[in-house]
């Protein structure tokens, strides 16, 4: 299995290269190019100073040459460069923000799974009945719900009016090491992210379960007199979990995208918040770093999903 994981990790390197090349090209080829970016952070400079800075940062070179230096720096020194905004190493900036994003995504995935899997299975068992219809309708509504809107609504109701939860941020003043306080701040963001991802998971689990329920071995299980509960939990669920696990990997890009939005709305100091503010500040190296780390997260998520796949289904071998 270790060999399999190693092969997969090696195999994902070209993928990451393609991702970074695309990002670099998009940024480098954009009208005005990166040099135009300096227009904002370098206001008040004389033209000569400006030229000097552009040359210093290497922005006068074509994008592929810049990309080459960026890659060289990454491979040889493990460095993603320095932020244009505060000159701190990009890696340090991102690592400082990563925990919040991971907590948000992790907790909300757990919450979503805990609710969506039983709901999806039950809806499949009761297919066409009232419960199924209601849950399916709710799923469609939740699917169309803009994450930022839901976030704003929850803030308005539960933070502004009811005052049950804090408005924004990840910790109260002077409480940065208090775990309960941190969780308290994460409740609304996690609920927001879970609500919008619930729809896909529930629908997926439902159709997977319906498919398995039609399989001959389920009929056999019923025929030999097993209770409904045993048939569903032991025979159906285990088989119907497989497609859902695949979704775990597939949904990561959208989860990360959603998390970025939520961080923005709730002012959570995570990677997405850093990303959006860096984009606005034209902090080129930080944006590049976040793109790379996001891609690594996605690739790692897919790998974990594949490994989990085999853990649930002994028929699958790594080879």
């Amino acid at each position, binding site marked *: 299995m270790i060999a399999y994981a190693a092969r997969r990790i090696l195999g994902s390197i070209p*993928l990451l290269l393609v991702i970074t090349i695309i*990002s670099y090209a998009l940024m480098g080829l954009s*009208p005005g190019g990166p040099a135009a970016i300096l227009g904002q952070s370098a206001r008040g400079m004389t033209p000569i100073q400006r030229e000097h800075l552009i040359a210093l940062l290497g922005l006068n070179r074509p994008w592929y040459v810049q990309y080459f230096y960026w890659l060289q720096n990454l491979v040889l020194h493990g460095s993603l460069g320095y932020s244009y905004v505060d000159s701190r190493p990009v890696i340090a900036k991102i690592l400082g923000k990563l925990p919040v994003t991971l907590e948000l995504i992790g907790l909300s995935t757990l919450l979503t799974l805990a609710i969506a899997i039983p709901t999806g299975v039950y809806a499949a068992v009761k297919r066409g009945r009232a419960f199924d219809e209601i849950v399916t309708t709710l799923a469609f509504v939740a*699917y169309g719900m*803009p994450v930022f809107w839901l976030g*704003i609504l929850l803030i308005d109701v539960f933070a*502004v009016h009811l005052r049950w939860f804090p408005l924004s941020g990840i910790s109260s003043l002077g409480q940065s090491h208090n775990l309960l306080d941190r969780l308290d701040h994460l409740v609304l963001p996690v609920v927001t992210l879970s609500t919008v991802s619930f729809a896909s998971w529930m629908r997926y689990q439902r*159709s997977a379960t319906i498919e398995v329920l039609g399989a001959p071995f389920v009929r056999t299980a019923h025929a030999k007199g097993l209770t409904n509960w045993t048939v569903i939990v032991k025979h159906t669920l285990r088989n119907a979990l497989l497609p859902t696990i695949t979704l775990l990997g597939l949904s990561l890009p959208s989860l990360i995208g959603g998390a*970025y939005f939520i961080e*923005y709305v709730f002012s959570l100091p995570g990677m997405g918040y850093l990303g959006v503010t860096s984009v606005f500040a034209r902090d080129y190296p930080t944006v590049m770093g976040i793109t790379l780390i996001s891609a690594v997260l996605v690739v790692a998520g897919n790998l974990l999903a594949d490994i989990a796949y085999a853990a649930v289904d002994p028929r699958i071998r790594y080879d």
Partner: protein
Amino acid sequence: MAGLVLAIAIILAALFGPLLWRVSPIAINHALLGDPQPPSLVHPLGTDMLGRDELSRALYGARISLLIGFTAMIIAITFGTVYGAISGAAGGWLDSVMMRTVDAMLSFPSFFLIITVEALTNSFELGMMILIIGLLSWMGVARLVRAEVMSLRERDFIEAARAIGAGPTRILLRHLIPNALAPVVVAATLAIGDNILIAAGLSFLGLGVQVPTPSWGGMLQDALSPAVQNSPWLIVTPGILIVLTLLAFSLLGEGLRVALDQSIVQVGVAGVDVEPVANAATA
């Protein structure tokens, strides 16, 4: 069915609403400046911080939303179909290179990419935004079409076409693509909703439709201003409009999928298999 009715209602409202409700969406009412009005007979959806009529803004916002939704969908579908068809028909190394690129583009939060491109190009024109959304959301379609083409390629009628002397281009355009279109129609329907969601997200961040042009995302952004804290209608209206529109197109897509006899179990989750970009914006 419900999806079709709802979608038609929204399209009609966008087309004819502004003709019937002839209140300017951008005229600032100085008497109401800084004093948003709750819904009333004069302003059925109230007014915003600048005294502008919310109903009118909502109707014009619907026009913009649908315009973006449809045109970006057409760009993505056209590009994705051609890309997927070429990849599927060519096979071999070209196919692997093309699909690897798709994998790469699917592997990172495209919403973040869109924000980055939007902000860095510094171009907030509507056409640019539509182009960017379209060009960053074709990957799901490309995969669908490729899969269809690959299974069609081996079928007898293609062999027959080749036997009577049809060239590769003709086979691609006249035989492969038309026969692969059923799942594309479903994907196209879902894409409209997804694009509207992305556009709303961009406008919400101030990167989309620029003021004073009304847009649903922009209305929501305005509603966050501290000056309008006790005006829940400003928050509720644009959100409900977005939810209803998305609901309409996902139900319609689901209905089409069943009607076109796509394997419901295999891919049958509205919006899930077809690259949930929009929900990157939102999910």
